[in-house]
């Protein structure tokens, strides 16, 4: 279970929220551009530190301003898909995906099996030798996803993980992702702007507005908020 209760001063406003996510559950995070979704993920990942508060995973504190605990990101065991992918441009697609396993000192032959499996599934086997800088935008996003999932993290943070995928891949991925999160039983936060994601993958959803939770509940409630807008109504 992931518990988050933090406060952080951003440039334009304060981020201030309290969240619990059970194992195997997925929180869909939606909200306007610049409302603080990415900032929140960075705080949970340990790339940035809250001004005060507490973040705990399975009862163990990752961050605690009172007890002065701040576990470094490499020890938090997270799988993070960055909004801008943050692929290693000097490495091949293969090496990007294998990176997390190598840091864990897994034997090369085991790595090979796992990476092949993930690259196959993502449809990237053919471009495995290309430099990560030299593939298309959607291919980059798939690499980022595979790189985060292959390490079997204890916590998943996905920042708009499907936005650049083509129609076919998006559908498959949505299904696969959902199943694998449930099977793995780790808490998961997915940021998205696509209400179809919310419906199909989320156990519950959260609407962020200028750093605060404006709405929390089942997916349907958030959709209702969305359908105040004109052409989102298409969804139903």
């Amino acid at each position, binding site marked *: 279970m992931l518990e988050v209760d933090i406060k952080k001063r951003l440039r334009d406003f304060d981020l201030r929220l309290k969240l619990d996510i059970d194992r195997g559950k997925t929180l869909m995070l939606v909200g306007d551009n610049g409302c603080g979704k990415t900032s929140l993920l960075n705080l949970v990942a340990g790339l940035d530190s809250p001004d005060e508060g507490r973040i705990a995973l399975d009862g163990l504190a990752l961050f605690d301003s009172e007890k002065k605990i701040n576990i470094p990101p490499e020890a938090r*065991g997270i799988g993070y898909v960055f909004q801008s992918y943050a692929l290693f441009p000097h490495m091949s697609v293969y090496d990007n995906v294998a990176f997390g396993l190598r*840091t864990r000192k897994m034997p090369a032959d085991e790595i090979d099996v796992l990476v092949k499996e993930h690259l196959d*599934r993502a449809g990237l086997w053919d471009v495995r030798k290309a430099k990560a800088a030299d593939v298309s935008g959607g291919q980059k996003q798939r690499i980022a996803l595979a790189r985060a999932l292959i390490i079997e993290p*204890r916590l998943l943070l996905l920042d708009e993980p499907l936005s650049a995928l083509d129609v076919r891949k998006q559908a498959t991925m949505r299904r696969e992702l959902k199943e*694998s999160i449930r*099977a793995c039983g*780790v808490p998961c936060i997915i940021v998205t702007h696509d209400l179809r994601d919310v419906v199909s993958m989320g156990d519950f959803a959260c609407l962020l507005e200028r750093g605060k939770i404006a709405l929390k509940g089942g997916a349907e409630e958030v959709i209702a908020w969305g359908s105040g807008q004109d052409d989102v109504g298409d969804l139903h």
Partner: protein
Amino acid sequence: MSGDSNQEHKCIGRAVAIPSRSREIALKACLGLLLTLAMAFIALPVIALFLRSPLDTILGTLHDPVVIDALRLSLMTSTITTFTVVIMGTPIAYVSARFNYWGKELADSLIDLPVIMPPAVAGIALLVAFGRMGLVGHYLNTTFGISIAFTTLAVIIAQVFVSSPFYIRQARTSFEDVDLSLENAARTLGATRVYTFIHVILPIAMNGLISGAIMAFARSLGEFGATIMFAGNFQGRTQTMPLAIYTAMQGDLDVSLCLSIILVAFSFVVIVSVKTLTRKVYKRC
């Protein structure tokens, strides 16, 4: 799509080696120690120089017209040199970072040559090329009546010769690191190559350019061997601080050390202010 076989993972999360707190501290201590040692290695000789020279001797020499001449000349020539190197070197660095032309690798290595040459040899080379009897200087002299060697211009030429590689190399790598897609974006927005260069590439590479220019400036301030050979040692005309230091060494070691300290202190102040100033300007734009 395969992959459905994957759902039975145990998913305990792959073990991560949690770095112990003590290891982190040890690393920091190591780095701190290394930094301190390195700083000490550079600072100690400078401090030892200072300790040997009483302050009043230093202040006394500051009134000596020889010193004033030399300091003025040094600052002037080094400044002109740096500007020349930056103005000529920037396009050269950019061209060799972005374009391929015949003999590029050769040209690139050629640029390093002045660094390898011991300075006096560089001076002789300049003399046999641009001196009155030199390969080129010969024509300059007979055709135009121009004589370069042993003038203030010669000081600048010698300094440009020895210090330009330091700027060009650094500028080149900085240009290479600028993301090509930004250049592309600028051009689709209607910017010509030149406009793009000035408004996009230059500001992004600025950090490296400033750093390279400071190196070139420092190198030309300290330049001695090539200057004395190619430009001679004439007070007020070609006697820069390093030459004055050498000349003073003939009489009194202490005076020459005082001069060295003045040079070092002055340059230090100049470099620090240039650095803060340019960084400020650069941050603002």
